[in-house]
Structures are given as structure tokens and as C-alpha cells.
């Protein structure tokens, strides 16, 4: 960041940081206090605690978006979203999604859960999951082709301009579901953005390298946040023999 400032020929760094960028911004301000210009930080990470603690809070944050924003939104438009006419009906419908379909659905929701302008896409994803769930209940050994055919023929009961959008979301979710059902155990593939993600999780102020602690934390999170909790149990850092470095003593 300071190299960029020098290349630009600016005396001070004016900076806009978003999400993890806020962590970087605070680091810059701490390391180069004489060169801090105006710093706008959007979606502030917690710089007072290890990053893994902040990341665990995300499961609470996603569950809260579901319960405080998306469920009421769905209940206030029952004839458009078809998820229920009251918040408890909507929550009850969503809670019925289980197993690998739930896993695939939550992964698909991750694309929309932080974009309020796409709230309808998040709810279309949940509607798709319920339709797929009802098909799987009647066709437990279904293959992808039959499910795709079912979805192509399904009457979604939405205005025509939304029909193809919903069908597309359902097809995409079907693919994710069968990918998960057919997944074989494989090594963690540390390339591209995944490498950055796991490097940040595994090495950037991660203080929790004990598998039992992670398992306990994940169990608690799954209890408290039924739709979104527990996913950090898949963190490959759990299966590394030891931390790649240790925090200095405080």
C-alpha cells in the first residue's frame, strides 16, 4: 500500500477499504502513522480480536439477516415468494430443508446474503430448495436429468418475467446439490482465491488450532444458528499438524 502511495506521488495515502480492506487500512495507519490521509472504512472488521473470532461471528450475522430481514420480507409478499404468509410459517418451511440439500442451499445463499438489493434472489433460492426437496421426497433415487426436467416443467406461479430467473436458480441449486452428493474426498486445493481465503484463515491471526475447540465451537454455532452455524468445521486448518507460526506472547 505504501509503494502505491509512493508511485502515485502522494504525501499521504487516501484510502477506501471494504471488509478485509478495513483490516488492511487500520494496519497501514498503525505502521505508517505519518502518511495516513483520509481513510474511509466500509464494513469494519474487528481489529481488537483475532481474525478467526471475527469470522465465527459471520454465522451469527448471516442467521440474523435471514431472521430479521429476509423472513419478514418473504412473509410480507406471500403470493410472490410462496414461502408462507407469516414469519413463523416461512421459518418453519425453511427449517424443513435438511441434509446435503440444506448444505447446498446455504452455499448458494452465500452469493446473495450480503446484498440487500438481491433479497428476492435469496428468497428464490429458498423457494427452489423447497421445490427440489418435495421432488426428492417423492423420488429418493432421482437423477439430475429427471430433476431438471421436473424443474423445467414446474409452474412457479410468479409473473412471467421472473419465471426463467427462478427456474435458472433452481437448476443451479440442483447442480450444487448433485455435486455435493457425488463429491469424493479430496485434498484441499490451495489455488486462486481459495488459497488467499485459507491463508487468511489459517495464518492471519488465527489463534484456534485445536480441533476439539473447533468442533465444540461449531456444534454450539450449529445449535444457535440453525441454518448458517457449524460450517467452519470444514476449515482445513483443523487438519494441519500445527500452526504455521505462533503469536508472540502478550
Amino acid at each position, binding site marked *: 500500500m505504501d509503494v502505491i502511495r509512493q508511485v502515485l506521488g502522494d504525501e499521504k495515502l*487516501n484510502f477506501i477499504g*471494504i*471488509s478485509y480492506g*478495513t*483490516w488492511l487500512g*487500520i*494496519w497501514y*495507519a*498503525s*505502521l505508517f*502513522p*505519518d502518511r*495516513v*490521509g*483520509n*481513510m*474511509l*472504512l*466500509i*464494513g*469494519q*472488521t*474487528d*481489529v*481488537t*480480536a*483475532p481474525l478467526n473470532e*471475527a469470522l465465527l*461471528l*459471520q454465522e*451469527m*450475522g*448471516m442467521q*440474523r*439477516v435471514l431472521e*430479521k*430481514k429476509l423472513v419478514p*420480507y418473504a412473509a410480507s*409478499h406471500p403470493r*410472490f*415468494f410462496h414461502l408462507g404468509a407469516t414469519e413463523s410459517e416461512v421459518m418453519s418451511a425453511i427449517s424443513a430443508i435438511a441434509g446435503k440439500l440444506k448444505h447446498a442451499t446455504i452455499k448458494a445463499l452465500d452469493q446473495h*446474503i*450480503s*446484498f*440487500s*438489493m438481491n*433479497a*428476492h434472489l435469496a428468497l428464490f433460492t429458498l423457494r427452489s430448495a423447497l421445490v427440489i426437496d418435495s421432488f426428492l421426497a417423492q423420488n429418493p433415487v432421482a437423477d439430475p436429468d429427471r430433476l431438471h426436467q421436473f424443474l423445467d416443467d414446474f409452474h412457479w406461479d410468479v*409473473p412471467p418475467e*421472473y419465471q426463467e430467473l427462478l427456474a435458472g436458480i433452481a437448476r443451479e441449486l440442483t447442480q450444487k446439490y448433485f455435486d455435493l452428493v457425488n463429491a469424493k474426498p479430496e485434498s484441499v486445493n490451495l489455488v486462486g482465491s481459495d488459497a488467499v481465503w485459507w491463508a487468511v484463515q489459517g*495464518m*492471519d*491471526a488465527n489463534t484456534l488450532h485445536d480441533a476439539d475447540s473447533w468442533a465444540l465451537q461449531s456444534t454450539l454455532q450449529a445449535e444457535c444458528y440453525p441454518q448458517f452455524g457449524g460450517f467452519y468445521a470444514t476449515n482445513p486448518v483443523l487438519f494441519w499438524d500445527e500452526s504455521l*507460526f*505462533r*503469536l*508472540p506472547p502478550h
Partner: protein
Amino acid sequence: MNHCSDFPPIERIPSDASILIVQAEYDPYTPLESAVKTFAALPQASMIAIKEEYQHLILLPYGNDDLDGSVAEFFLEQKKPPSLSVVEGNPLPLVP
């Protein structure tokens, strides 16, 4: 020592540093609780919280005059907003 393995030494940030935090109330990825902890640790920072909003990547201009005006003045006129202010978030999209 690898600095990235520790928390930033925020006590080194100048007391008059110009820092503005913009935070959605229901941001799922960087929840308000986390942002408030950082804000509390940085007395030189201002924070604008967006009520009822859950968008993580707040794009500017946002559409709220108070927020957009404050950010514009922050960069163009070096004017810091009050320590803490709250603005109304945009409603969720209308559906047919």
C-alpha cells in the same frame, strides 16, 4: 516478527487521524458488534451506521443524502462527521 500475526498497534495511529467508518446495522460478514469494538478502540474515528441495512459492500453514492453528503465532505473538504451518526437504510426492492 511477522506483523501480520498480531493485531495492529492502533495506539500508533495519530489522535487526529481522519478515519470514517460506514457500517450497516445487519452486515452479516462484518457484524455491527465487531465494528463497534473497533470504533470504541479508535477515539479519533467517526462512524455512520446505516439502520435496517444489511448490505456488506456499501456502494457510494448510497442514496441517502446525509450519508453521501458526509462522505463527499470527508474527502473533498476534510470535514469529519460527528463521532457517531445514524442514517436510515434503503428499503428492500419492491416486488410485483
